């Protein structure tokens, strides 16, 4: 691994650990959610890109060297999580793969069995990528792992409308499905950690009050998180993929997760104020708007995030969705990196 980034006072791992301890290092750490962008860098199709772990590794390394983020992304595409359930991913030339038509029906839950990641090559490719990244990054740069939570997985298994029907009609079938999903997700999360992932992003948009009422989440998805998070053998980020967190933050804080995401729809300073000293925040710029921002707008956006989130650590700058759109140019990323590195230096100059 070589980069002039290695000359910084803190390694990325040290920087992240420092912020998780609610202490300031040399600058605010940032994570760029590059999943499929490596395909753009390599000028190959997204499908071909993800089919080769070495290619993904090489691209992630290159992106890290160019843009200096404090983590590399080990995951490929979350849409692939539909395949163990009988679904088929759909690839595009201009965006992340889609999980396509939901493969399960509510009736099929009764005969559903837990699939194993060992039977699915795409999952093995992710693990190979993580092993390669671990060899290159050693303990200097965190490797991001992730999965769709057992509680949000039914969105792609059944379709959101059918899932909401199930949530409101059949508690027994729901419990069966969530139990099966927990077993699957636990195997997947721990396999990633064993392969080299430093932490697991637990993507659970269904937990947000944007999606279901607070009471319903506490009766269902919260119990799932309570059960599974302690069994994941590494730190976790509870990520709401752009959905609001604040209305349920008081409960999420009781869970054993190290970091909680913030939506661009929420005030980062309010998130910071309400957050406990045990957890940090990641977020919260909106990448859809960022796509078309002018340079001065990017600078303002970065400044605002740092001002609201950066003091006393406990904050990682990143987008609010957990995946940057394909349509974001590398020029935009260059500007973003420039401003976060310049404006995020501790002690912050504009307190």
């Amino acid at each position, binding site marked *: 691994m070589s980069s002039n980034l290695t000359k910084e006072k803190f390694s990325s791992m040290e920087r992240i650990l420092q912020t998780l301890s609610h202490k300031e290092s040399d600058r605010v750490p940032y994570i760029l959610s590059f999943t499929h962008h490596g395909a753009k860098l390599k000028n190959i199709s997204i499908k071909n890109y993800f089919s080769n772990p070495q290619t993904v590794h090489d691209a992630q390394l290159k992106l890290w060297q160019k843009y200096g983020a404090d983590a590399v992304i080990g995951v490929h595409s979350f849409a692939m999580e539909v395949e163990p359930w009988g679904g088929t991913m*759909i690839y*595009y030339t*201009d*965006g*992340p793969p*889609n*999980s*396509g*038509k939901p493969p399960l029906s509510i009736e099929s839950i009764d005969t559903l069995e837990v699939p194993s990641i060992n039977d699915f090559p795409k999952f093995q490719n992710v693990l190979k990528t993580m092993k390669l990244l671990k060899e290159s990054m050693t303990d200097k740069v965190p490797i991001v792992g992730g999965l769709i939570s057992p509680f949000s997985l039914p969105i792609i298994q059944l*379709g*959101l*409308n059918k899932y*909401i029907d199930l*949530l*409101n009609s059949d508690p027994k079938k729901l419990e069966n499905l969530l139990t099966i999903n927990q077993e699957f997700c636990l195997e997947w999360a721990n396999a990633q950690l064993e392969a080299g992932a430093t932490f697991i992003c637990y993507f659970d948009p269904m937990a947000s*009050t*944007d*999606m*279901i*009422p607070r009471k*319903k989440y506490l009766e269902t998805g919260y119990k799932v998180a309570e059960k599974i998070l302690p069994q994941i053998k590494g730190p976790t980020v509870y990520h709401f993929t*752009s959905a*609001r967190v604040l*209305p349920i933050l008081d409960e999420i804080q009781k869970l054993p997760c190290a970091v909680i995401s913030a939506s*661009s*729809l929420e005030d980062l300073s309010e998130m910071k104020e309400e957050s406990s000293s045990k957890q940090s925040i990641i977020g919260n710029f*909106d990448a*859809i*708007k960022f*796509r*078309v921002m002018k340079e001065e707008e990017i600078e303002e956006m970065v400044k605002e995030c740092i001002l609201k989130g950066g003091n006393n650590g406990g904050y990682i700058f990143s987008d609010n969705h957990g995946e940057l*759109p*394909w*349509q974001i140019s590398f020029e935009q990323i260059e500007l973003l990196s420039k401003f976060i590195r310049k404006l995020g230096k501790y002690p912050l100059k504009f307190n």
Partner: protein
Amino acid sequence: MNIKDVEMILVGSLNSIGQDWEKGDVSLAQVYMSGKLCENIISELFPEIEIETHKFPKVYTVVLDDYHVMGQKILNVLLKINGYEVIDLGYGISVDELVSNVKEMKIKYLMISTLMLRAALKIKEFTQKINEQNIQLTCIVGGAPFNFDKNLWKEVNANAMGVSTSEGIQILTKMIREDLNVQ
């Protein structure tokens, strides 16, 4: 109580729920379930009667190049309760397929729902092809990308966007009335 009274109450309720959703006071699941409940109420109270549709033109709904159908499902229900005849063009439809549909079916009013940014940006390709062929079409868009970037609907050359399905329908109704010169 006749069906028109019930419709008025339901439409008012759904609009109120839509406004609450815009404020973040109500969840998507509650919006979806309220639409379903309203459909059930109508069919249980008046099983023999169909909601009287407007004399307005038909409204077509579609999920363009995407498989996230929730928004469209809610939209279809609310449109029907508001008295529209709705034609559901389905989901995963490509730009070229949609252009063909517009021409063959002589579509005048189209509502497009998307969740993915890439699908939202495809609308620009669609509106470009429509404009190149001088086809008269009112296109109202909605979905998460448009809510995050409030200028996106202009970028894709849509006629308007709805932050919620209720708002989208209100905008549609206003546009149709203006086109037809009616109150």
